[in-house]
């Protein structure tokens, strides 16, 4: 079992929108090479992209660890941002605290977290105000 794990690590820099999405597109390529079905790749890369962007616009960047096994793909996004006051509210479609600058770039629909929830099989958020947020998501390759 343990030998069958592929691990990838990414560092997301704080406010560099120009590279935002690099980690998710890199994972997308790896999954393609591994022959993972397209619909699984779509779920993983959309969830990762949304999470990666949130790390850039709401926190100061962070670290992403991805574990790929034949059964599932797990993505752990860890940032040292401000934390999320009320996760339930943040999860609601349309809720956003994005500022004017990032809204001009097309962010701030308040759909990122709902998209992550929708495209993953498991999603766990742990957050501490003033310390940071960890979003842990899993997509199953085979039906459980």
């Amino acid at each position, binding site marked *: 079992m343990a030998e069958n794990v592929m691990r990838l690590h990414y560092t997301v820099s704080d406010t560099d929108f120009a590279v935002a999405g690099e980690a998710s597109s890199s994972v997308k390529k790896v999954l393609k090479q591994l022959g993972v079905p397209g619909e699984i790749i779509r779920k993983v890369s959309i969830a990762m992209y949304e999470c990666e962007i949130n790390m850039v616009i709401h926190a100061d960047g962070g670290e992403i660890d991805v574990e790929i096994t034949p059964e599932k793909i797990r993505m752990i996004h860890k940032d040292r941002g401000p934390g999320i006051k009320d996760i339930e509210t943040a999860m609601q479609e349309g809720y956003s605290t994005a500022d004017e600058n990032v809204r001009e770039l097309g*962010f701030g629909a308040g759909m990122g977290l709902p*998209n992550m929830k929708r495209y993953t099989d498991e999603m766990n958020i742990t957050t501490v105000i003033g310390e940071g947020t960890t979003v842990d998501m899993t997509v199953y390759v085979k039906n459980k």
Partner: protein
Amino acid sequence: MKVKDIAQKLNLTIISGESNLEREAENCFIGDLLSHVMSHAQSGDVWITVQGNINVIAVASLTDCAMVIICEGMKLDDAALKKAHLEEIPVFASEKSAYNLACELKELL
């Protein structure tokens, strides 16, 4: 209808993705809020937007749109342009409004 035929009929200016013009486009989605587009655009869509930053290319790639039309004379910025070429995503520009493009598309799709 094929991307290249849509481009010709709508009089679009090609920006990138010359290698992917044979693909069939099936439907159309209009939107500028990226994560909203992410949840609603479908594979094979013509996506019409006024946004021109690099994240448009990321979203187009993730949703597997057949083509992107940057409307109302808006421009792709340099970083977006570079990524569009790299990912070979068919991106076009038009002076027309999203409404006018959609009206014309209705006759084609």
